[in-house]
């Protein structure tokens, strides 16, 4: 129990944020977080074997969110995975739209890497895909976002 409580203190906020963004309408992130830690407690004997407790917890949270989605008869992740707008910066606003346009296969690893700082290996564990697939999906996502983003930096050589 104390291990799980320590993990909650360390990763609870990120997991709550993740569940808030990936929950179906009608489910509260708090309930899903509690379900996540309940499942973690049930499988606590496996904790010693896992390479990254953070990846393990994110994997559980992802399954909990997906189960909630299925329960709500919605197979896809919610459209709005990015945080609601807090600033009127048009570049950030445009980026939010671009992220929402990404396929889920690219959006998920991007979110796990940029929003929660998971390593490529941890993302591979959470999504249960090979490391090379994580890398290529991230590269595709970043290239696409780069291409869609409004150019702010002036090309010193004028070649843009």
């Amino acid at each position, binding site marked *: *129990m104390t291990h*799980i*409580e320590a993990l*909650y*203190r360390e990763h*609870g*906020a*990120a997991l*709550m*944020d993740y569940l*808030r*963004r990936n929950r179906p309408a009608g489910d509260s992130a*708090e309930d899903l*977080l*509690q379900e996540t*830690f*309940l499942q973690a*407690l*049930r499988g606590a004997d496996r904790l010693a074997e896992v390479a990254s407790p953070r990846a393990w917890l994110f994997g559980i949270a992802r399954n909990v969110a997906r189960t909630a989605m299925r329960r709500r008869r919605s197979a896809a992740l919610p459209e709005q995975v*990015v*945080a609601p707008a*807090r600033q009127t*910066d048009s*570049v*950030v606003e445009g*980026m*939010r739209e671009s*992220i929402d346009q990404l396929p889920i296969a690219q959006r998920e690893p*991007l*979110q796990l*890497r*940029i*929003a929660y700082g998971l*390593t*490529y290996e941890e993302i591979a564990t959470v999504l249960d895909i090979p490391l090379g697939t994580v*890398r290529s999906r*991230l*590269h595709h996502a*970043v*290239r696409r*976002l*780069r291409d869609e*983003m409004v*150019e*702010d*930096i002036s*090309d*010193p*050589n004028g*070649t*843009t």
Partner: protein
Amino acid sequence: MALNRETLERLLIDRALGALSADVDELLASHLEHDRAADHEARKLALTVETTRQAFQQDSRSLPAFPAEQLRGVQRRRRRLMIAGGGAALSGAVAAGLMLGSVLFGPSSQTSVEQTQPRQVADSVTPIRVRAEEPQPQPAAAGFWSARRWRERAAARQRQETTSVRWISPVKRPQLEGET
């Protein structure tokens, strides 16, 4: 150091995502000092990732307290279920053992007889298993090895041994004591 464009782009994206090891990052930085186009590309990618980070900015709402009580309750219930399950399994095993023991090593005095009812109606009568009546203890006198029989035989033998013969005259038959 000549890097092909594709490899360089992959390295730049990994660098923007903060996924390069320190030594590779250092080597790439020294390369970028001499490659202005690549350096510009690196800055574009860094800005893309930074803007993405802002778009993903975490919701800073406070985390609720750890639901320790609920989780402890669940843990207690789970432990109780495990104990109950273990007890039930143990009882089952003991009961099965007793049944098996009674079948294999049951008292031999209890005999059972398979009796098949005559087939009066085809297929309507199935053989039934009838347990014979428990043998009742017989009265001692009737039994072959009874104590009373043994006592009677012993008394008769004693009578035979103690009966004296009276032979009064050589011309008369000898008489047993008590005979007239």
